[in-house]
Structure formats: structure tokens, C-alpha cells
């Protein structure tokens, strides 16, 4: 029987969901790139013991969220380099992620690389707040789910979320869409 567990299939699908819109605005051969990102990301994710043991594992969501963040940030870095022949140009990632959806309209854009740096400094101050932001933003989990995974109350999660978000907001540049 296939050991490619359900958990793996879920994450794979989730990764694909991330990678596909990311590449939508790129060149024609984006499908190949999408595939490449997903595969690469997948190979790394699979190494995590918590992912191997499946979604019932308490660490599953935390690890998945963290991995997704790493994958996206890595991708954003590579892409920034590629765009300008080794130069450094920031890509408003949130915009890229959302532009293909129907969400459109006026939207605050967040540079993922800025966000990542800010999250690193948040992690130095409060690991839990950082995990909460990660799980909500990068994995789309609800407060009760996060509370369950981290073993604290939902009230704590809400407070962590508010504080973590305010801190991040104070650390990164918010731009209006171009």
C-alpha cells in the first residue's frame, strides 16, 4: 500500500495551491517552474518527522506552516535575484499571491522578505507569537486549531495574534499597491 500518506497529499496540494498563483504572472513556461517549486519544497518537507507521522500529530500543523513559510521566502529570494541579474529587488509577494484570485481591488501589499525578517525578530522576542502568525497566515489555520496544536487557550492565541501582528506591522514597510 502506498506510504504516500494522506498528510503528504494534503501538503502537496497546499504547496501546489501556493506555487500556482505565484507563477501565474510569469513567463509561459510557468507550469514547469510551478512543478519544480512544488517538488523541491516537497522534498524538503518530507524530511520532517512531524510531517511523516501525519495530520494527527500535534506538531504537524506547526511544522507544515513553518515549512511553507521557508519555502515561500526561499522562492522570493531566488526570484529577486533572478529578476535583476543578481541584483536585489523586492517583490510584493502578498500581491503576487493574491493577484490571480478574485480578490483584486485596493490591497495592502506586503513584501514577503520584509515580513520574513520581521518574523525572525519577532521569534527572538516571542517564539509562540511567531508560530501563531505563521500558522494563521502561512497555513490558514483557525485559532482553535492553533490552540490545539500549541496546547494553550484560544484567548492566548488571539492575544498572541494581536500582539505579533502589531509588532510586525511596526517593523515592516506597508505600501499601497503600485
Amino acid at each position, binding site marked *: *500500500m*502506498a*506510504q*504516500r500518506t*494522506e498528510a503528504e*497529499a*494534503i501538503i*502537496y496540494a*497546499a504547496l*501546489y*495551491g*501556493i506555487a500556482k498563483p505565484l507563477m501565474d504572472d510569469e513567463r509561459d513556461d510557468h*507550469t*514547469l517552474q*510551478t*512543478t519544480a517549486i512544488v*517538488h523541491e519544497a*516537497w522534498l524538503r518537507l*518530507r524530511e520532517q518527522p512531524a510531517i511523516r507521522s501525519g495530520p*494527527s500529530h500535534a506538531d504537524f*500543523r506547526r511544522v*507544515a506552516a513553518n515549512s*511553507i513559510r521557508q519555502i*515561500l521566502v526561499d522562492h522570493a529570494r531566488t526570484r529577486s535575484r533572478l529578476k535583476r541579474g543578481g541584483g536585489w529587488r523586492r517583490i510584493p509577494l*502578498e500581491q503576487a*499571491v493574491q493577484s490571480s484570485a478574485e480578490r483584486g481591488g485596493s490591497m*495592502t501589499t*506586503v513584501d514577503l522578505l520584509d515580513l520574513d*525578517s*520581521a518574523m*525572525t*525578530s519577532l*521569534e*527572538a*522576542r*516571542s517564539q509562540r*507569537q511567531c508560530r501563531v*502568525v505563521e500558522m*494563521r*497566515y*502561512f*497555513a*490558514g489555520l*483557525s485559532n482553535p*486549531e492553533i490552540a*490545539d496544536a500549541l496546547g494553550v487557550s484560544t484567548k492566548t492565541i488571539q*492575544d*498572541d495574534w*494581536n*500582539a505579533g*501582528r*502589531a*509588532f*510586525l*506591522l*511596526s*517593523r*515592516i*514597510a*506597508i505600501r499601497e499597491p503600485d
Partner: protein
Amino acid sequence: MPNQMPETDGVGADDAPTRAMHAKVSAAFAAVVECTGADRQHITEALRVEDPACAAELQRWLACTEQLGEESSSGFLVRPIVGLDRLHPSAAESETEAPQSIGPYRIVRSLGRGTFARVFLGEQDRPVRRRVAIKLLLRDMGASDILARFDRERHALARLHHACIASLFDVGMANGSPYFVMEWVDGAPITAFARERKMPIDERLRLFVGVCRATEHAHERGVIHRDLKPSNVLAFVADSGAAVKVIDFGVAKAIANHCEGPLGHSSLRTLAGALVGTPPYMSPELLDGGADDADTRCDIYALGALLHELIVARPLVDCRNGTVAEWRKQARERPRVHIDASTIALGERWRRDLEAIIETAASPDRNRRYRTAGELGDELERVLEGTPIRARPVGFVESLARRVRRHPLVCGLACGGLVAGATATVALVLTLSASAQNAELKASLFRSALASVASAESLADRLGVDEQRATLQRESLTTARQLVALEPHDRIAMDLLARTLQGAQEVAASMAERSSGDERSALREEASRLRREHLDIRTRIASQPEATIADHAAVAVAMVLIGNEFEGCADYDAARAQYERALGIEEGLLNVEPSNPLLLSRLCYSYERLSVLATRRGDSAVERTLALRRLELAEQLSAMQPTERYSRLNLAEARRFALAFDVVPIVGIASVSDGDDLCVEYLSDCRALARDYPWCKRSQRELAMALGTAAHRLADASEAPERISLLSEGEIVLRRALGTTPDDPDLIDSLASIVSDLSQEAEWSGDDASALARIDEQRALLRWLMERRPNEDIYAKALAICERRHGEVARRATAGLN
């Protein structure tokens, strides 16, 4: 603006004071968020007194959130990048949150959960009291789309009645999620069932024959499973002993199609396919995503993989690790099937037979698999009865071929070696037969020579270079002919000869295309001879007492091949005679098996050719009858296989032919009310086809022709703008398709006809300059076509008309200027 770059923060993980401060600010922030006005002021003031640095940080947080305004700050990070939850309910959900009921069904308990669906045991009171299995698709699965697709297969599913197929009772929607209600089978996956009971091999095979029969039953009714795997093949203990039922027929495909559809692109389908199917049981073409559509052959592959696992308790392809690309490679280049005698008690002969059977069923090349699940079942019954199996013992060559796929030279050498070996063996057999002694040795040598030729033939088939193929095929042919001469009634030898001939005529024809002068005519003659010999041997096979429907159908194919040859030489009467003979056979077979999709598609082709020939003769009454019969058959086929590319294209073509005569109500074809409705359906189906298969040349071309046909039906002068818009769209479609294959005669042919229509429109609108330019364009296209297809007289006729019109318009234009 607090736009401090975080990199400059310089906070280490061990910076305790910073962490303490952060905690303090966080606590204060939490308190502040919950209150307003004076209270808020009070808290910040208190903090300022106690810890000014903290207060400053808090102020910064508050300023940021306020500066953005309530609305946009609540937007910051709120919409997650991805929802793990959307694809997957939390782990606890399936246990604790099983719904009380789904539709009219009471839920007893949860049976399990997959990536796309949850399965429940349900109870029904009316019309009968029974327990059912309910498959509830997860949220966000594109409910209406799945149901729409499913609806198209509903009729086919309703015709499934087989002891080894779990019936589908009902389909519905509950809270926006589609659900399927099926017969509940209280069993275990066939592999686990056999393992736990330590079932002996023969019992396992008997059980598996039931699975083959069930799959055959479904395939004959146009239903493909698409996800055959142990958990969909449930075994249980019935009154008469172990029994088996296949679940999820039609369901897996409806879901799979949904997941493939919106993505469309071939490399994306790979990805989606990897999620939808179950990799160890997915054929290489499914893993590729390059296959046009899932068809019966991928079910045959899955059966082979399943049989392998049932016997050796290990999957055929190990998909526990790696990527889709790696699995694909493994599935294509896997080593020869080997059954380890230590895994199961098995005689040597059974072991060899079963290896050959699995090798054939799960061949990476779908054309080499058993043609039907029934054939696979028959083979297993032969094993059980102890009679010889039909599977060719090509395992070794297949595995060799897989490894040398990228090395045609090695492949050629191997092939040459095999043929040489076979030739030597045949010589030996001939010597022995003279002495007429040692019959057993003779028989065994005969088998071995046969196997060598079969191997050579199968290797030759993989060579990319025609010349190389041709040389080897000639040698294989000689040996195959000798073998048939030795044993004139040996079914396997005759089959082999027929297959080699069919391949050889194809190679000769393709080489003729690319050569010229004497060499060309010599190759054509060779192809022609081979086709006749092919028909001859096919006829002999079909006259054997144990001949199957497929054998008879193969005779018709051999005739059609000869018909094509005559048609290519513009000998239309001779072509017609061949097609009519083929058609007679095929119609006769259809009486025996009225819903055999293969027969239907072959018949459609024969009718198509015959109606084209009638058009050439100008016999419009016959043409009409033929075109309508073809439309009827195409509708039948499409009802059976609504999502197959072939049957969709076939239906579109049939409609085009029928539309050539303004069709009035036709008895027996319910869906056609009149030509206009037919045309609307034709056009909209073609749009869907072209959208679903952007890479498929025929689909693109059919869309262009549908646009042209639709334009032709708008006869009124006032409708010119609509006509021009349809024609221009057609031109765009064709030019885009020509972008990838610039030298395609079929596309150029259609383009010439659209350009001609556009020149006519320009002329009607009085724009002589444009008309002339278009006529020039058409002339160039026609000249190219004439060169490419010298036997086709239509182009010469069209060119003559073209020249005449050119003269007329040019004269008028000059007169207008003067």
C-alpha cells in the same frame, strides 16, 4: 514612520531583557485592544511611568495599527496565503463531527476519510430499508462541476449490473457538498483479506478473476474506473465462500476529471493526477498526464499492478518516496516482474505464467496490454485450468527495451541478435521436422523461435528510425512466415505474423512519403504487398473456430488500410469496395455486441470514408444516408464515453458531415431537432474541445471548421458582420495551431477554405483590394497543397475557380479605377 529594517534589530534569542520587554508590551497591548478612550489612556500612562521604553514601543504598535485605519489593518496578514484547512478537515473532525444525516440518510458511523472525501455508513428507510455507504466530498471540491460531469455518465452507470460491482444508488448535494450513495460492502481490501487468511494462490486468482469480469462488464458499457486499487476492491465472506466487489465505479473518474479539467495543461495534469490517482496503480501515461484521456487501458494496468500485489504482497512500483517524475520513470523502466518463490507457494510453471501475465497487463506501453479486462480474466482461468496462456514471454526483452530506450543502436543490435537467433532456431526446427522425430523438442524449439521473433518485433517497434526498423522487420517477417508455414494453425504464430505485417506496411508507407522517384514507387509497392498479406493472415485468423470479435474486427481494419491506399491513389471505386466490405463486417459484429465502443468508433470511420467517397461521386443521396448513420453511431459512442476526446471529436465530425445537408428531423436521433440546433451544439462542443485540448491539432481544426459552418448558415446579407466575425475567429484559431505545426496539410486545407470565404465576404462588401489580397493568399495555399498532395484533384478544381475569380475581381477593380 517606524520603517526600521528588522535586520538592524540585532536581537539574539538569548536576549532576555528584550524578550521581557516584548512580553510586557504584548500584555499591555492586549489590555489596550480590549478597551477604549479613557481606559486606554490610563493604561498607556501607567506604563510610561513604570517603563518609558516599553511605553514607546507600545505607542509605536498602536500608531501603526491606527495609522492604517481599522479596515486595512484588519486586512494585514488576515487572508492566509494558503488554507491547509480547506483541503483537509482537522483530524478530530471525522470522529467527533460525523453529521447526524446526509440528505435522507441517517448516519451510523464514519467509515474513513480520503484526501477528497469522507465515507460514512448510512441507513435508509425508503424505498427499502438498507445500509449504504455514503461518500461525501470535502468542501471546495467544485460541487456543481463534479455533478455535471457525473450526470453525463449517469446513464452508463445505470447500466452496470454485476455481482462484483457495488451498485451506485443515488447522488445528491448536502450543504454544498456532493455525495454519492453506494451499496455498502462490509469487506476488507482484497490484498489484506488474502494475506490475513493466508489464502492459497488459486483462491486468490479465482477472486481476482471476478474483479476482471466486473471491470470488463463496466468497460463494455463505457464506464472506466480510473482508480482501481486494493481499497476499492473489497473482499468478504459470502455464503458460497470468499467474494469480491469493486466499489467506486464512476465516482473516481468524476472526481479525477474535475481535478484535471480546470488545469488543462499536460504538465499540470501530471500534478493533479498524482493527487487524484494512487501512484502505485497509475499507468505511466496517467503519471505523464500526456495521455489524451484516461481510458480502459489504464484500468488494465491497474489490474496488473493489483494482481502483482495480491500475489507477492508488494506493490509493483514503489511510490513511498520520490517525486512524480521518479515514479513515472520507475513505472516505465521498472525491471521485469519477478515473483519470489519464497513469498508464496507456487509451482514453477505458474510462476512463469503469472509473471508473463502481469508483465502484459501492466506493460508500460498501453498498446501492449491485454485489450480487455476479459482477456486478462481468461488468461487467469487458463492458468487455473492448466492450459497454455496467450501472454507472450517477452518479459526479458521488454525489460531490455526499457533500459535501452534511449539507445536505439543498442536496441537495434539486440533486435538483430534476436532475429539471428530465431533464424537459427527455425533452421533447426526445419531440419528436425524433416526427420519427424522428437516432437517435444521440435515444439519447444518452435516456441522459442516464436518468442525470439516476438521479442524482435516488439523491439523493432521501439526504434525511432524507420530504416533501422524496416531492416529488422524484414528479417522478422521472413522468420515469422517460416514459423506460420511450419505450424499453419498456430494461433500465436499467426498473430505474430499479422502484427509484424501491420507494423511493416506502416514503416514502408512512411518511408515512401519521404522518398522520391523509383525508390518511392518501390516502397509503395512493398507497402501494398504487405497490406494484402496482412489482410490474408487476418482473414485466416478470423476463420479459426476460436476466433473472437476482436479477430473479426481486425480483418475489417486490414481492409480499411487497403482502402486508404486506394483512396491515396485516387482509385475511389476500389477504395469504396474495401470500405464497404469492412463496413459489412463491422455492422455484423455490432449486432453481436451493440455497445462495443471500439466497434462503434471503427464503424464511424468506415462510414466517414464512404460518405466522403459519395461526395466525390456527387451521389448526395447516398452521402446523406451514410452521414446520418454515422451521426447516429457517433451519438451512441459519445453517450457511452462522454468525456473521451476521441468520441467528442468523432461526434463533432459527424455533425459537420450531417450539417452538409440541412438536416431536418431525423427519426431515431432524439437530440437533433433541426440543422440550426445541431449547428449550435456542434459549435459549442467544438469550443469546449478546443479549450480542453489546446495541444490537439484536430480539435483546433474542428473548431475552425465549426466556425466556418456556422458562418455558412447565416445566409442573409445583413448578417455579414457576424459571418465575418466567425470566419476571422476561425482564421485566428488555425493560424495559432499552424504556429506549432507550420507544415500541416490538414490545417492549411482548412485555412484555404476560410480564406476563400473571407475573400468572398470582401468582394460582397465591395472591398476589391482586400478580396484580391485574400484570393492571392488562397492561391498560394492551394498551390502548396497541390504539391503536397498530388493525387488530390479537389485542389486543382479549387485553384481554377480561384484563378477565375481573381481575373473577374481584378478586371472590375481596374474598371472601377478608370
